């Protein structure tokens, strides 16, 4: 959630000629090679491509976890490359909600505490924090699992906890990197229905996937290959 008034009019995300190269020994790998795109509020976008196409790297760049080698990235109108560690942490905390393929929950903590983590770093006081975490867990349908640890939950439930954690700070964008990759198909479908609901509630969502039926949920599909965008358009048009 951004407090800047004109953020309603400018794109949430604007990438301009983003490059990301890795050095593996003597070899240089172009994970992203001149990627430019913009995303507006309440868009529901799927990013597709074969493995190694750079879709996860793009996700990490958008999520402020990775720093592009070259190019500019504006998040809510602010240039990310100009941010220091504290501002980057703030952006991850307030603007981005991340959902990982492997859930990435804190194993020793309860579901409630896991959802509270982003609020702790946002400096929210305990009472309010717990109330908001409860509400987020309620939204994803886990009101009765709040005090369970991840090891006591199914994969689908764990991913719901992760989604609740991503939503609890009311971020501008929900980034999901293969959110159904570790789930069976019926649980995956459930998670995707949850994303549909969240989108209808006004959230901006980007989902990385390589499964067409998941991309069907999105309104816009971006395809990547070898670090470059090969197509970008409304879903259902290609195939």
């Amino acid at each position, binding site marked *: 959630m951004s407090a800047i008034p004109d953020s309603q009019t400018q794109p949430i995300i604007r990438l301009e000629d983003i490059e990301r190269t890795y050095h593996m020994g003597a070899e240089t790998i172009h994970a992203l090679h001149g990627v430019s795109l913009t995303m507006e509020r309440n868009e529901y976008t799927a990013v597709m491509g074969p493995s190694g196409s750079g879709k996860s790297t793009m996700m990490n760049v958008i999520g402020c*976890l990775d720093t592009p080698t070259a190019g500019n990235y504006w998040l809510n109108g602010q240039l990310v490359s100009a941010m220091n560690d504290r501002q980057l*942490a703030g952006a*991850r*905390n307030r603007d981005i909600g991340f959902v*990982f393929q492997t859930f990435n*929950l*804190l194993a*020793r903590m309860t579901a409630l505490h896991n959802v509270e*983590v982003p609020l702790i770093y946002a*400096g929210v006081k305990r009472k309010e924090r717990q109330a908001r975490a409860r509400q987020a867990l309620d939204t994803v349908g886990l009101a009765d699992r709040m005090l369970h640890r991840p090891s006591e939950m199914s994969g689908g439930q764990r991913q719901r906890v992760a989604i609740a954690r991503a939503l609890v700070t009311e971020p501008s964008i929900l980034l999901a990197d293969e959110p159904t990759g570790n789930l069976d198909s019926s649980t995956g479908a459930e998670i995707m229905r949850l994303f549909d609901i969240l989108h209808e509630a006004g959230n901006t969502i980007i989902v990385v996937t390589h499964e067409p039926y998941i991309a069907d949920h999105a309104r816009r599909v971006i395809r990547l290959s070898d670090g470059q965008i090969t197509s970008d358009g409304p879903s259902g048009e290609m195939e």
Partner: protein
Amino acid sequence: MLLGETLLIALQSIRCNLFRASLTMLGIIIGVAAVITMVALGTGARAAIDEQMAALGGNILSISSSHWFNRGVARDQDTLTTDDAHALAIESEYFDGVVPEIDARQQVEYGNRNLISTILGTTPNYEEVHLFEVAIGRMFNESDDSARRRVAVLGSEIPGMLETDASSIVGRKIQIRSISFDVIGVLESKGSSGWRNPDDDIWIPLSTAQFRVTGNKLVENISVKVRDGVAIELAMVDIERILRREHGILPGADNDFSIMNRKQFLDSRQEATEVFTYLLAGIAGVSLVVGGIGIMNIMLVTVTERTREIGIRKAMGATKGNIMLQFLVEAMTLCLLGGGLGLALGAGASYFAAEFAGWQTQISFASVVMAFTFSAAVGLVFGIWPAKRAAGLDPIDALRYE
């Protein structure tokens, strides 16, 4: 971020690895306990010497007949007399009191009880110079002395040794060497002064002792109380001047007496104690440092183990400072917990040393503060590197870490 949350996370993490945390803390526990115990022993020894110094009551020089060798044969001859004491009292203005003393082990009888005790024949100012207090009755006075009255003042433990109590023995008669003496007073306890216990001595007037026991003017030793503000060395030179003249010792000949400065003796003992305390505390401090290295080792393991957690926290919006603080607080919590337990252990060890070995120990507030500051400092110093490593992790690398 809120410090309370950080502390909670630290405690939770310690609880999850309780066994490992306890082993790690053991180093700090032993280190702190060792420092506390050593300092307590040192402080106790110091306090004991301080007490002896206070009991001494100012600067007392003790003069005794010296032992010397004559053609290879050790000679021990009493050379000091009451005349010497007299000369010292009259001729020098450096002294507050001159107390000649005769002592002998004698049999003492009371009713059907008897014991062997040190009988001290001395002057009435003994009490004042050696800082004794009369508990019941009175000290003998000048007229008792000059009239050679058979009166006796008892050390505080004597009545008990004779199976009676102080108030009932005063006014009764005891036999010393089968001569009947009136008990006129009992002194307050003075406590052992290290090499002997004055509480089981008996005092009688000097002239009585000489007349009834020795039959000559010789005395065992003479104590001299140096007036406040007078340098001890000056007083010693004056004693030598007077006694050499009294004894007719030719220039160049050796003294036939020796002067001992008990305060100086205690001072040097004090210094030795202090050096020893620092030495022991230093060795104990080394074990604290070793404990600190143990903490660092475990914290580094913890950081590696929790790389993924660090990645998750960073992705959720933790700053470098947050992560750093989290691991630093964890290290310091370990150290402070260890410090607290070590303090308890050290206090226990000091207590047992005092109770069973009979050593005087004293746990000072300063050593408690020192132990805690030290363990906090150890936590800070040895926690900062692992914490820095944790904070510096790249979020992506940390998240991908298996």
